[in-house]
């Protein structure tokens, strides 16, 4: 066996290294349109120490590392290697929940911890972590938070990385540190807990928000080996209300006002196509797509701790009054779908990625904006789709208010059948075209996956230059997921040749 494989095996254990095609196939491509590229090997560290050893080795050998901590299908291309000779750093063995602290409402988890796993553990303490929309069962909580995936409850989203707090990191240069408040204490979680620290503040240490250099980074700066997350209390009382509309415009002002008044827990908007597919993907759920409203605002009302039911009742009354002011009526159900099914979808996870259920493949274009721009962006999506022969009514739209109503995640989801020859290429073109049109119209691609990176960093050359300087500090050898974002792909030919030997 190649001696480099031996070296890796020595670092993480022979059973935790693989280089056979079958093991590598899952990493070679994903649901996005990034070019397929099979990694050279996969290493599965079981601890931060092992991660550090692998990173050090990768520096010595100029080996690209691609961190991944979720299982199953991936969607954004960030975990598909961009350079040959890459080693997948699969963190799923690091799946311990290190601490659950009800009093301070904090949990500390390793990157391999999934949503179902964490939510079950937290539920035992009457808590949960605010989830994103229907994550797949093997979705890593840490990965989701690091990628700033939007969560469902805008009023808890005091800034976009919430509920991510302090982290432990192995930087691309092999050095370790803790970020946030944890960075001001000893480099030992146990010692910090002993002293009463709970890793709650994500800021710092000192003048740098180190954790923000890791968010949205697609694994290009370092590897997070543990993360502290803020938990919410499970509501003791909860119900859903819905506002149906024929046009997205009708929901905009009301949504703004809900966000401003911090009314409700879940606040999100679907179009019929998106909601239909979301629900249809779930076992035992019946949905009538044609009966669904063109647009649905989902408003969850939760009550926690004292007088929980009354809390819900007061919010319900306030919401209904408010809706009336905007010419809307809140209902406890919508045509075409059962409330219980919607509730379950928002509370749970899916075994397999739900977006693939309809047609087998799905192209997603996602960005952030201010809400009043969303209707115009939706119009652009329809026009571009139409121009590529894709039915506008099949474009799924999901809008998630974030940052208490200041930022809104907008996601266009286009299912398609990849088994039909040429379709994938067509959809790739459509996706590129759609992204280009949206960018030109002011959509902010804050998470520039795959082909979006180049136009984003062309526009914002100052950010590109700054990020390259930052990258040169934390990953001077450029081994962390090279080729992503605005970072090049240095690979020493000698090392590559050795790997292929």
């Amino acid at each position: 066996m190649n001696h480099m494989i031996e070296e890796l095996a020595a670092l993480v254990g022979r059973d935790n290294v693989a280089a056979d095609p079958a093991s590598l196939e899952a990493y070679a491509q994903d649901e996005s349109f990034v070019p397929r590229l099979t990694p050279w090997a996969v290493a599965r560290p079981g601890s931060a120490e092992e991660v550090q050893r692998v990173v050090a080795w990768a520096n010595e050998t100029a080996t690209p590392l691609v961190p991944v901590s979720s299982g199953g299908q991936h969607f954004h291309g960030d975990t598909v290697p961009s350079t040959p000779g890459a080693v997948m750093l699969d963190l799923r063995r690091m799946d311990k929940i290190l601490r659950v602290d009800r009093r301070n409402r904090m949990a500390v988890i390793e990157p391999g911890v999934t949503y179902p796993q964490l939510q079950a553990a937290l539920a035992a303490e009457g808590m949960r972590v605010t989830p994103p929309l229907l994550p797949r069962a093997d979705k890593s909580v840490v990965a989701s938070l690091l990628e700033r995936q939007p969560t469902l409850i805008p009023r808890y989203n005091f800034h976009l990385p919430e509920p991510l707090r302090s982290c432990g990191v192995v930087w691309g240069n092999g050095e370790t540190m803790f970020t946030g408040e944890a960075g001001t204490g000893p480099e030992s979680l146990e010692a910090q807990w002993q002293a009463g620290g709970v890793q709650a503040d994500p800021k710092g240490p000192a003048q740098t928000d180190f954790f923000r250099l890791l968010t949205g980074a697609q694994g290009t700066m370092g590897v997070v080996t543990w993360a502290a997350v803020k938990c919410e209390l499970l509501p003791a009382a909860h119900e859903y209300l819905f506002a149906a509309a024929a046009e997205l415009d009708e929901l905009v002002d009301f949504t703004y006002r809900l966000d401003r008044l911090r009314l409700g827990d879940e606040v999100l908007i679907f179009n019929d196509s998106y909601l239909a597919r979301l629900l249809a993907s779930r076992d035992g759920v019946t949905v009538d797509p044609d009966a669904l409203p063109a647009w649905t605002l989902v408003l969850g009302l939760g009550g926690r701790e004292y007088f929980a039911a009354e809390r819900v009742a007061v919010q319900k009354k306030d919401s209904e009054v408010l809706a009336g002011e905007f010419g809307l009526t809140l209902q406890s159900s919508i045509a075409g779908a059962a409330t219980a099914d919607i509730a379950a979808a928002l509370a749970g996870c899916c075994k397999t990625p739900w977006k693939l259920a309809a047609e087998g493949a799905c192209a997603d274009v996602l960005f952030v904006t201010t809400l009043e721009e969303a209707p115009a962006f939706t119009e652009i999506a329809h026009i571009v789709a139409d121009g590529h022969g894709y039915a506008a009514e099949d474009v799924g739209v999901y809008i998630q208010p974030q940052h208490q109503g200041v930022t809104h995640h907008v996601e266009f989801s286009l299912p398609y059948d990849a088994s039909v020859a040429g379709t994938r290429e067509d959809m790739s073109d459509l996706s590129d075209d759609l992204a280009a049109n949206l960018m030109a119209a002011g959509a902010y691609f804050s998470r520039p996956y795959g082909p979006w990176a180049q136009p984003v960093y062309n526009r914002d050359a100052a950010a590109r230059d700054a990020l390259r300087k930052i990258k040169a500090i934390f990953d001077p050898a450029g081994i962390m997921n090279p080729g992503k974002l605005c970072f090049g792909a240095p690979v020493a030919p000698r090392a590559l040749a050795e790997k292929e030997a």
Partner: protein
Amino acid sequence: MSPSYAKPTTPAETAAHSPQIPDDAYQALEDIVGAENVSRDAAVLDTYAFQWLAELVRPDQSHYMARPAAVVLPGSTEEVQAIVRLANKYGLKVKPHGTGWYHWSGPIKDSDATLQLDMRRMNAIVEIDEQNMYAVVEPYVIAAQLQAEILPLGLNLNIPGVGCSSSIVASACAYHGAGPDTYYMGGNAENVLGMEWVTPEGEIVRTGSLGSGDGWFCSEGPGPSVRGICRGTLGSRGGLGVYTRCAVKLAPHFGQTEWNVEGTLPAYRLPIHENLRVYTLAVPDWDAWAEIYYRIYDNEIGYIFHRQFNLAGADLAAAFWLMYNDASKTLSDVPELAADPEIIALTEELRISFQLILAGRSNDDIELQDKILDAILEEVGGHKVERFCERDMAEFTNVYLQRLGHKHINFVWAGGYIGSWMQFGTPDWVKGYIPTAAAGLERDAAGGKLVQCGGDAMMGSGSGIPLGGATGLEQFVSYDPDDYDSTVAGIKHMEDAVGDAAAISYPPGKEFLYLQIGWTDEQIWDALAHAKQPQAFHYQRKIKEAFDPNNVGDRMYPTLPEGYTAGE
């Protein structure tokens, strides 16, 4: 009045010990901003060197930090850029300040020729986007001004603990930004959106969505957030470039949209909107104090949450605040008030107390919040302090906490104030240092060289991070900066506080940051190297090398030299 303890000197001697810049550099500055917007008049320079807390850290307890080589008033981002580029060319330091309150606003080292940038000409509110709840401001917009403009729109903003006289840009981009509103409204770290940053090289970096030309609304990205190197727990305090604009996220305002303050100064009053409640709450002991904070967090009630009035000292707070609310009284009346049996009883009642403003979006909502608060009080054994919840004191509390325009009361006793302790953590953890902090102040004030107002003179936000979970209590230690012995006692207190905290295995507090201003580089490096994870400061050195190759920024952006480890 004490005899002057200033070391005798002459203008020539002072000038000889103060850095100068070449005449052609000065001429170039005049060309950039206009001759009327730059000065190197010695007295003018001294008004920038003179700073609160300087006397605690400077040689001979001088009240002056280092004198700038020139003071410059830029009027635009382009002018700032030109000044910074000039500084690079001539090897000068650049030290911007907003309103300039804190000894690190001024130049730090006598050996550095520093251009002090006073940002007061850049004072515009650039934009208020009501629907998207953000405002864009230049550095000399203070929180009071923006709040006044947005309250009629039903919006509010987080005002940091220093008060509404502070620069929003400075707080959000270059310092800390937490205060009584942070629990509900977010701190300025969470609220800052796009920033416009003139780097120490004179490049312009616009963070988040701003850099992509998509507006101000998003601070993150693209990809990793560049803003991550702009500020962390603290910002660069003027030591890494100049922030010329930023956007901040606003918050809902649930009170009256007409700001009609009543009352006779100094105790203005703001009538309390029907959907607001303004309470001073007391608990029987510190265990109950921690309990009630956790319950407030978990029940998600509270709009403004702060332990404010205790800053006057637990022994004297009742007497002080009632004196303050009587326009005909002065500090001379405090002893008599403090001896009044009713005030004595009130003092005891207020011993462990704090302030909480509730805001409801509707009548039903506020009534329910009241009900929740009553249930919490019942459970922890707390109660509403009747006298402070009476209309006069409640309306005073309302205006005080909503506008935060009385923060200069920090200095009321003797003109000097140190904030010591204020280690930040969970209520359970903070509870652990309170007795030591109180005993320490009691001990240090026993000799009469500090104001004796009771050992507990602590103030702090209900939570310095949004949603709850982290608080801190800061001792308000009052000394007379005109009195050498009192000033020296203040320094000793800071040193004692560091030691007292270490003795109970707590890290040092705010006083540690203050003391460092007067240290040598080596002393600071030693302290940084002894941090539990000094690698943060090595990374900051690398960030500085990358963005400030000519060392235009000063050591308020702290770094460790390459290879420097503890014990050297």
